[in-house]
């Protein structure tokens, strides 16, 4: 019997929601790491019992937690007390140590909110992306924007400096949430191809395992930057791809829903009949690479759903033609937001769709979006939602 495990990161801890394949009865555990901001929790596709979590705090900084038993117990990798290697030296655990590789890519500045240049400063890990073929390899997207990876189960982290060293760094700038690398997509058909996205710099792609990177923002139009078609500076909120169709990408930009059929080389707008094309989340049905889900948000000035109605919009045609999905969702007096990493899809038949709100609700559709039900509705503000399909 199939099962699903939904991993929820919130402003005040992580929660794990589990169900059988029917996805109508749920067991909830948590809060794990109560009181901490849990930016992202994600399981390894190689070993579902291996789960990585980003735990962060304005007081105490960044921690990485790891579970090897499906979220029942957790530990910080590599922090076991160890004798000093030489007299007077400290043990050197590195599971929460994210140090930019200044030797490989000299530290530059980036553009600050007021247009001046500002030094790079590590703040937190926004997104963890476990490898598709090795449970001990995991990528981390961080603020200020850079890509790190670990090949020892998150015991130690190294920057992939080619991205930050791309040369366009002085043009990158923080969005309202900070200058974060929030999206990492690994191409299952090409282990050397990785897509990432940064607010507000844009999307980038590597075809050589992270050594070199190419901005992939052609076709994006952002009227809030001096040159609306610039190569760098777009506030990309999220990018999604169905692994069965690598190269077909969908993007929720600050404003505009976009589509690329050529691995990001060119984008075209597919907002179509959406009531507003501002938003954060976007995801693709696990079985239908042209079936896409977004949740329109009223505007960048009013970060809540449009017209007080929580509506998921689905396109079965890869964009442009969108239908509102409302059954089971509040259709009046609703003023929540859905943040960029807070939507996920399972791989059961029918595809399950999940999202979490800033009001603390986590909704599930067990029928590809036709109807919805809350799994839980009084959590802290939801930062991220991931789902594991377990056999």
């Amino acid at each position, binding site marked *: 019997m199939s099962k699903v495990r939904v991993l929820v990161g919130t402003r005040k801890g992580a929660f794990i929601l589990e169900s059988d394949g029917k996805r109508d009865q749920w067991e909830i555990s948590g809060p794990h790491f109560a009181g*901490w901001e849990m930016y992202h929790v994600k399981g390894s596709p190689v070993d579902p019992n291996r789960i990585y979590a980003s735990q962060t705090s304005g*007081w*105490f900084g*960044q*921690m990485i937690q790891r579970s090897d038993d499906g979220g029942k117990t957790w530990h910080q990798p*590599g*922090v076991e007390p160890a004798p000093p290697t030489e007299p007077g030296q*400290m043990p050197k*655990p590195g599971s929460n140590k994210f140090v930019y590789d200044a030797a490989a890519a000299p530290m530059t500045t980036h553009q600050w909110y007021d247009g001046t240049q500002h030094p790079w400063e590590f703040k937190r890990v926004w997104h963890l992306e476990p490898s598709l073929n090795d449970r001990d390899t995991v990528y981390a997207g961080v603020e200020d924007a850079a890509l790190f990876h670990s090949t020892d189960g998150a015991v130690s982290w190294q920057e992939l400096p080619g991205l930050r060293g791309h040369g366009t760094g002085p043009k990158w700038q923080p969005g309202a949430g900070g200058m974060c690398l929030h999206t990492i997509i690994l191409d299952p058909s090409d282990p050397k191809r990785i897509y990432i996205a940064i607010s507000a710099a844009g999307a980038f792609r590597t075809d050589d395992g992270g050594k070199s990177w190419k901005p992939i923002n052609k076709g994006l139009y952002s009227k809030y930057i001096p040159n609306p078609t610039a190569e760098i500076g777009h506030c990309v909120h999220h990018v999604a791809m169905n692994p069965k169709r690598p190269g077909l990408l969908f993007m929720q930009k600050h404003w505009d829903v976009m589509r690329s059929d050529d691995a990001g080389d060119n984008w075209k707008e597919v907002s179509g009949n959406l009531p507003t094309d501002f938003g954060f989340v976007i995801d693709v049905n696990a079985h239908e690479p042209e079936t896409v889900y977004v949740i329109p948000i009223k505007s960048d000035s009013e970060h809540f759903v449009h017209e007080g109605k929580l509506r998921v919009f689905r396109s079965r045609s890869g964009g442009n033609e969108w239908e509102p999905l409302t059954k089971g969702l509040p259709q009046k007096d609703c003023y929540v937001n859905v943040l960029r990493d807070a939507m996920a899809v399972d791989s059961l038949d029918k595809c399950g769709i999940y999202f979490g709100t800033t009001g603390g609700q986590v909704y599930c559709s067990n029928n590809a979006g036709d109807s919805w039900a809350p799994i839980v509705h009084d959590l802290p503000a939801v930062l991220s939602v991931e789902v594991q399909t377990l056999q």
Partner: protein
Amino acid sequence: MIRVILPYHLRNLAHVGEEVTLEVDGAVTQRSVLDALEARYPMLQGAIRDHITQQRRPFLRFFACEEDLSHESPDAPLPEAVASGKEPFIVIGAIAGG
């Protein structure tokens, strides 16, 4: 024996109670106490002091003997009452945020 009182979240991180006791060789300073604390509880590395600069994290303060020692030199001797174990060295989080 040095007594150190930790804030709630650091206790949970280190899986300890409110107060821990440490042995410190040589001069008892902020640096030597925190070095000993982090050697025994490596999960606290980076949580009290920045990994690279070793500066106190901005939203944490160090108190002892009813004095705020946060801005003292990390190599200044701590009060004798701390060195003797009579009084604890207190790491405290700023009251800020929600």
